[in-house]
């Protein structure tokens, strides 16, 4: 078991606290079968892979991937990047990753930056080799918006209403819990490199079988190639259904 990065400095009134979904990602990404996949997908002397996490929150998953790069990707030369809409999450992520990296200097990749942004809108096309997304997946009536004042980091105390909005943003997924995830799925063809692979967390309420089918039928994989979408990690069985699962997505 690779050690879980410390997040004791993270303000949990403003940033999503690591939970079962985060830990499922850690377990799945560091499993022996993932290692085999990564080793054949990103062989040691191929160009340095760029790893992106969308919505890293506390930064626990990105810090884990960075600090244990050599165990997870069988090479320490990876670059990592986090993009979060919440500026407090960006600051938390930067700190969590840098602490974990310092603790594991011989196996760690290089952390580029935490960026405040809306999903992948600020990325140059087709650069990402590994994309990780633990989305706001809970089905909700409405999709929350970031309070206008928090789009720019301003001085002053965060109000109680703003705090609850920030946390709501981390879990509320709108219709079927898929409104934000669908935007990311639609952008995969533009965001992932040719060899790119995405890890997406889904809950039973997201109708994962239908989601995987939709991905396999997307037509932007490139000539002679098709999208693959396979479940590679599950947790929390409930009435015969897996409560949470991780889907790996790539072109083949």
């Amino acid at each position, binding site marked *: 078991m690779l050690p879980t990065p410390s997040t004791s400095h993270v303000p949990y009134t403003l940033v999503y606290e690591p939970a079962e979904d985060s830990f499922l990602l850690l377990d799945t990404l560091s499993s022996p079968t993932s290692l085999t996949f990564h080793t054949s997908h990103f062989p040691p*002397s*191929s*160009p*340095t892979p*760029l790893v992106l996490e969308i919505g890293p929150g506390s930064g626990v998953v990105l810090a884990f991937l960075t600090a244990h790069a050599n165990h997870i990707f069988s090479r*320490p*030369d990876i*670059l990592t*990047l986090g*993009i979060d*809409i919440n*500026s407090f999450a*960006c*600051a938390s992520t*930067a700190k969590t990753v840098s602490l974990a990296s310092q603790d594991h*200097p011989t196996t760690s990749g*290089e*952390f*580029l*930056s*935490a*960026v*405040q*942004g*809306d999903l992948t*809108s*600020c*990325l*140059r*096309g087709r*650069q990402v080799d590994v994309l990780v997304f633990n989305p706001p997946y809970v089905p909700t009536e409405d999709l929350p918006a*970031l309070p*206008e004042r928090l*789009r*720019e*980091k301003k001085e002053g105390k965060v109000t109680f209403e703003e705090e609850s909005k920030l946390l709501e943003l981390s879990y509320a997924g709108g219709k079927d819990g898929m409104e934000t995830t669908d935007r990311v799925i639609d952008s995969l063809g533009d965001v992932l490199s040719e060899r790119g692979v995405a890890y997406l967390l889904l809950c039973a309420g997201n109708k994962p079988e239908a989601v995987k089918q939709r991905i396999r039928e997307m037509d932007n994989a490139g000539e002679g190639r098709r999208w693959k979408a396979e479940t590679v990690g599950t947790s929390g069985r409930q009435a015969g259904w897996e409560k949470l699962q991780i889907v790996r997505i790539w072109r083949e």
Partner: protein
Amino acid sequence: MKLLTLNFLTCAVKTCKSSSDSFPLHPKDAELASDDVEVNPELLVNLLPRLDWKALKTTSAEVFLPSCIYPLGFPQLPDSPPTIEQLQSDDKLLKDLHSLLMETNLMEGKLVCGVCGHEYAVREGIPNFLLPSHLV
């Protein structure tokens, strides 16, 4: 943020993306900081083939303007990327690239789009790419 991050970012405005002028973004009023990172030749060798060299050259020329004081003065990058052999045999080049790519951080300032002119603020090392609602 590592200066190297600019090799992967563009303007967040949709209509700018089709223009080649939206990449790289141009640093303005940049305050830099240097991290002490151990040199990793293997990383640089594997990183080189995936970099946009022209963009990197632009970024390094713009960020090290005379107004920004770089303690050692940063040397100009060659017009084309060095080969792996050049990198492995030229210790100074390796160290310069290491210092530029792995150690240089942009802490404060702005990143400006060459198409729409929008300025993205960088504060405490974190750039903000959220757009005001009229630009989304």
